[in-house]
């Protein structure tokens, strides 16, 4: 795996009598997405703040590319920290500046870029985050989700080599949570930065993470791939992972991809001759955030009330799985969805919703069913 980009050796941090980090050892490698998981108050944010130098350890040392931060000169340390961007849990946007000014701030204050160049970069980020309409608004005028995206835009505007995300999806609805995690994964692949996330979104973060670090009672009790975590035999597994997954299922309409598979597979395993399933793939055109959000929410709400479960597979693609439903029943439910729900949606003229259905059979792979449904995609409603 080579030399770690960041390494903690026996790092301890106390706040009064409270030991938050108790001899933490960890390694983070360049170009990967590393996610730190753990319960609230476990010290995940404190750990991130040590990486960027907002906090210093009481004991132990932190190494950056093999060199101890404690023995680095001021200039070298500043040079290393300059490669890092940090997205705060509570966004930390300047409330006296507009969204545009917030995103432009690191460029106007720390670079020699011309005003036009700054404008071009800021607009590009705002467009990517679907924030153009909010550019001249103040953070207090935005929803929690929009504030989060503005903070994300600010963190990425300097094209950093390392990005620390402190709970990037907190306060987001299920559709946007998937969207933000997908976006982080896409940007990470596109720009090649090292992403370090702190998240509760278990198991969704597994899909974008190369490595998982589990923080438990002040120590890193697990470092490895998401697959290895599945077989991790430790109290952390029961106390943290399962409880978070169950809570998520109870609270949201959308299923995580892992639960979606698990649910599907649990039904398939029964292999009863009379059981059948229907999968519906939806795509929305044009692929705009607000439109996809509204359609996705409508799909999730409608089909969950009929025993189905839905995930956002791509930015504007949703998959609904209807257990114990024949293809004919599925088509009927889709017609009802068009009549009952789609008519109520207030979307701009020209928006098209496509859908494709496929019948599932015991033993058939999820992917095969989805691909079959995709091949049947056709326009079912035009606004």
């Amino acid at each position, binding site marked *: 795996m080579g030399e770690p980009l960041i390494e903690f050796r026996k790092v301890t941090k106390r706040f009064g009598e409270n030991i938050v980090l108790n001899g933490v050892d960890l390694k983070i490698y360049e170009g990967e997405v590393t996610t730190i998981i753990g319960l609230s108050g476990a010290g995940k944010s404190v750990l991130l*703040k040590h990486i*960027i*130098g*907002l906090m210093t350890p009481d004991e132990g040392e932190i190494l950056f590319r093999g060199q101890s931060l404690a023995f680095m000169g001021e200039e070298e340390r*500043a040079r290393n*920290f*300059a490669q*890092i*961007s*940090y997205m*705060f849990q*509570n966004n*930390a*946007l*300047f*409330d*006296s500046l507009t969204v545009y000014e917030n995103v432009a*701030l*690191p460029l*106007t*204050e*720390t670079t020699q870029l011309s005003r036009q160049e700054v404008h071009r970069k800021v607009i590009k980020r705002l467009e990517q985050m679907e924030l153009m309409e909010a550019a001249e608004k103040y953070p207090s005028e935005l929803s929690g989700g929009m504030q989060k995206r503005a903070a994300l835009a*600010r963190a990425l505007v*300097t094209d950093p080599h390392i990005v620390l995300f402190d709970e990037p999806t907190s306060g987001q609805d299920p559709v946007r949570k998937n969207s933000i995690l997908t976006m982080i994964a896409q940007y990470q692949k596109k720009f090649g930065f090292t992403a370090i996330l702190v998240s509760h979104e278990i198991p969704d973060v597994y899909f974008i993470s190369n490595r998982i670090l589990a923080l438990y009672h002040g120590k890193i009790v697990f470092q490895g791939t998401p697959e290895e975590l599945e077989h991790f035999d430790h109290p952390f597994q029961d106390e943290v992972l399962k409880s978070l997954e169950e809570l998520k299922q109870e609270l949201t309409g959308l299923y995580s991809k892992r639960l979606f598979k698990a649910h599907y597979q649990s039904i398939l395993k029964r292999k009863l001759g009379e059981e059948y399933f229907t999968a519906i793939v939806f795509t929305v055109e044009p692929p705009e955030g607000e439109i996809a959000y509204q359609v996705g929410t409508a799909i999730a709400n409608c089909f969950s009330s009929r025993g189905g479960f839905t995930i956002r597979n791509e930015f504007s693609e949703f998959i609904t799985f209807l257990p114990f439903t024949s293809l004919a029943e599925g088509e009927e439910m889709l017609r009802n969805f068009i009549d009952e729900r789609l008519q109520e949606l207030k979307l701009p003229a020209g928006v098209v919703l496509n859908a494709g259905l496929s019948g599932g059979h015991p033993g058939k792979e999820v992917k095969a069913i989805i691909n079959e449904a995709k091949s049947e995609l056709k326009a079912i409603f035009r606004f």
Partner: protein
Amino acid sequence: MGAAAIFFTLAFIKIFHPRQIRKILNHVYYIGANSTLIILLVGLFTGMVLGLQSYHALVKVGAQGALGTLVTLSLVRELGPVLTSIMITARAGSAITAEIGIQRISEQIDALSTMRIDPIRYLISPRIAASLISFPLLTALFDLIGIVGGYISGVLILGANAGTYLYRVQASTDMKDLTDGFIKALVFAAIVSGVCCYKGYFAHMRTDSHGAKAVGMATTSAVVTSCVLILVADYVVTSLLLI
């Protein structure tokens, strides 16, 4: 005290960074221009009360001709710089502490650090520079309108001689009186901006309270400390200037 001195010195040095002009002008507008009305009102009525009281006192000794001298020297040497500074402390100083305190507890200042923006340069230096510009200008305005207030009450209302009043204003004020007043205004500007920024910047380190309450306590403490220090510094500076 030592920490506050280091904090102020660092912030003062960083005033001369190339990217500060626009921020300084914004704060001059907030601390200076937006305080104009309150300074005009306080200055006018201070001058009027001074004229009223002084006239009745001077009449008893038959020296009402010295009204212009008394009003002018009182305002230029003492009341102008002191009352201007106290009024700006109440209006802008408290707001500075509250704003910086909120930025501290909402991690906005930490966010600046992570963006490699020096928080002292970005937040504190422009406010100190703006105070050093605004305080003497507002003091001059206060002095001027106070003298007009003394004229209104002493001459227009009580009937003192207008020519004598204006002659005394001009004749009894020399350049040293004006420069001493402005030196005091600069000292008070440094005290008020330094104290208010310091209290806000370190609001999160208060041991008596946390969060929003800490910001409230820091604001109260900044106003009280500034006012007390203005009066203490007034005595010290006056003593030094009279040597």
